[in-house]
């Protein structure tokens, strides 16, 4: 145990302090996000021109994971909480859709409210327990709670258990099957992604966000000036869980299938990789990281069925040979000094 872990409550001390605000902070981040969103908005045109409908399906999937990664960035990048169970919230959101539609409730608004409520409640309970600990404990406990949710769904044989469950149809809006069209689903996900990005930007810029960032940088000092880090960190954790639940709602609709495989701990690990790859604590980095990660994954899969080997090697090399982690390495390469 290092001396540092003694002082900082919850999460890993100093995880983000030397990485925040990196290459994509402030106004640059907003510009980068605007470019990404614009390109995404134009993508269906390209898909039509190239007569490649699969392009839009892939892009929808990427945006759904970008939404989940975005929410994880609030926890990981701004809260310095290394949460290793984030995929559980996606799964809970997806199962809210599956369970409700299997029982005849197909309206996406009802499903989304249920998904947000369920994932926020799960985040509230597990977060309140996990945040009593810090450092490696926090990582292991969030991982264990994620597994708990996973095993719950695996043994839920009424809704497919291990095999998963196929949705009878995509969700409807006030009875209209609007999302049956892939392009409509694409724009719905894009709209929610933009909304979440704008909302989270406002959150991290607010007083709440400043307290959260202050806690990340020096929890003891924040406590000394009268803030209770626990409440702020828990609030961020619950918000992130709820947003990931929304991602789950869309994932269920996109695949028209839900299974416990959505919430494996490997998936949680991949979400962390996306956020770190793109740059923690920047929001737009999480989106860029999700896009990059899933494209690399698809690209490696073309070459070999053993693409995970390549991914693993890439990951180890990036961490070992770029000082200060991946973002630190990218920053050094691009010549930007660290704050």
């Amino acid at each position: 145990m290092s001396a540092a872990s003694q002082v900082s409550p919850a999460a890993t001390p100093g995880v983000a302090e030397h990485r925040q605000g990196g290459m994509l902070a402030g106004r640059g981040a907003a510009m980068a996000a605007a470019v990404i969103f614009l390109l995404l908005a134009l993508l269906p045109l390209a898909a039509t021109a190239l007569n490649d409908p699969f392009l839009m399906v892939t892009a929808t999937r990427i945006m759904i994971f970008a939404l989940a990664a975005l929410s994880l960035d609030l926890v990981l990048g701004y809260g310095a909480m290394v949460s290793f169970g984030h995929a559980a919230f996606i799964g809970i959101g997806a199962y809210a859709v599956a369970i409700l539609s299997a029982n005849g409730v197909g309206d996406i608004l009802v499903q989304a409210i249920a998904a947000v409520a369920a994932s926020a409640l799960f985040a509230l309970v597990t977060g309140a327990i996990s945040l009593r600990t810090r450092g490696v404990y926090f990582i292991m406990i969030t991982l264990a709670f994620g597994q708990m949710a996973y095993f719950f769904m695996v043994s839920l044989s009424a809704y497919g258990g291990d095999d998963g469950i196929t949705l009878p149809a995509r969700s409807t809006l006030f009875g209209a099957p609007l999302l049956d069209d892939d392009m409509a689903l694409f724009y719905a996900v894009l709209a929610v992604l933009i909304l979440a990005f704008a909302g989270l930007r406002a959150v991290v810029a607010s007083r709440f966000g400043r307290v959260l960032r202050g806690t990340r940088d020096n929890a003891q000092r924040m406590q000394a000036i009268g803030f209770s880090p626990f409440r702020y960190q828990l609030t961020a954790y619950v918000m992130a869980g709820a947003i990931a639940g929304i991602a789950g709602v869309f994932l269920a609709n996109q695949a028209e299938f839900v299974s416990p495989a959505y919430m494996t701990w490997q998936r949680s690990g991949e979400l962390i990789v996306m956020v770190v790859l793109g740059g923690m604590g920047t929001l737009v980095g999480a989106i860029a990281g999700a896009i990059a990660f899933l494209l690399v994954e698809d690209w490696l899969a073309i070459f070999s069925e053993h693409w995970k080997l390549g991914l693993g090697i890439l990951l180890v090399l990036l961490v070992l040979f770029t000082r200060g982690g991946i973002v630190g390495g990218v920053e050094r390469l691009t010549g930007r000094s660290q704050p």
Partner: protein
Amino acid sequence: MFNLFLLQALNGIQFGILLFLVAAGLTLIFGIMDLINLGHGVLYMVGAYFVATLTAWTGDFFLGLALALPATLAFGILLERLIFSRLYERDHLDQVLATFGLILILNEGVKMIWGAAPMSVPIPDLLSGSIPLIGFMRYPVFRIVIIAAGLLTALGLYLLVSHTRIGMLLRAGATDAPMVSALGVDIKRLFMLVFGLGAMLAGFAGAMVAPILSVEPSMGDSVLILTFVVIVIGGVGSVRGAFVAALLVGLVDTLGRTFGPILLRSMMEPSAAAQTGQTLAPMLIYILMAAVLFFRPSGLFPSRGAVA
């Protein structure tokens, strides 16, 4: 009913002993190096594959085991030199990412070398029988051997940690590694030793279950998570805590799966009881973990200062 209880309790202890073998090394690695190692489960898998291959090669399980142990030790030290030794100074997030990458590499590597199909290792003839418990109940000798081997290992670890100079350094390292280093102890060698030992113990666990479970890629992943639960309950860095928690987790999980539905049946109708029991049983150990943490956030045996 009592017989069933005894049988399941023995199974629970056997499961707990295995978890202890994996957790013992990992809790020291967490406690002494402050390193979060997700890659420990793959060492368990590698141990199982080594023993499967070497048993097939030599035609004898014991010879295979005797060769597999130094092989996992060497493999662990190799990984420590190549990867882990560079991670000690990094923050936890870097450690998570690198060891997550390591899992991907080794799981896929195993699949490439040995194929995705499960391998089986025959139980050696000498240990293939069963012994009578009470009445008609019998229990396989091999599972008894696993329990005995685990208990012996636990005793050996206790002696090592509590009564030797190396053990003293380990305890000191868990309390304050920089201070131990400042006092002139070669901390790098100590770290390497702990890592090699932990790898060998995990490999030993994998080797011992190879004859009763199927040897397959990713078999270490579920064990890794259960090991985390054990370490969190027991207290990071505490071998004694890992022992108590491993048995607790093994017993609660095994007995919960069998007796949960039976207990529920007295409260609700049979089909609902079966369904609820089946759903709740796998969650029991996580609920146990949450309950322990709620009352003792640093586990049952908080380690500051005490490894043993």
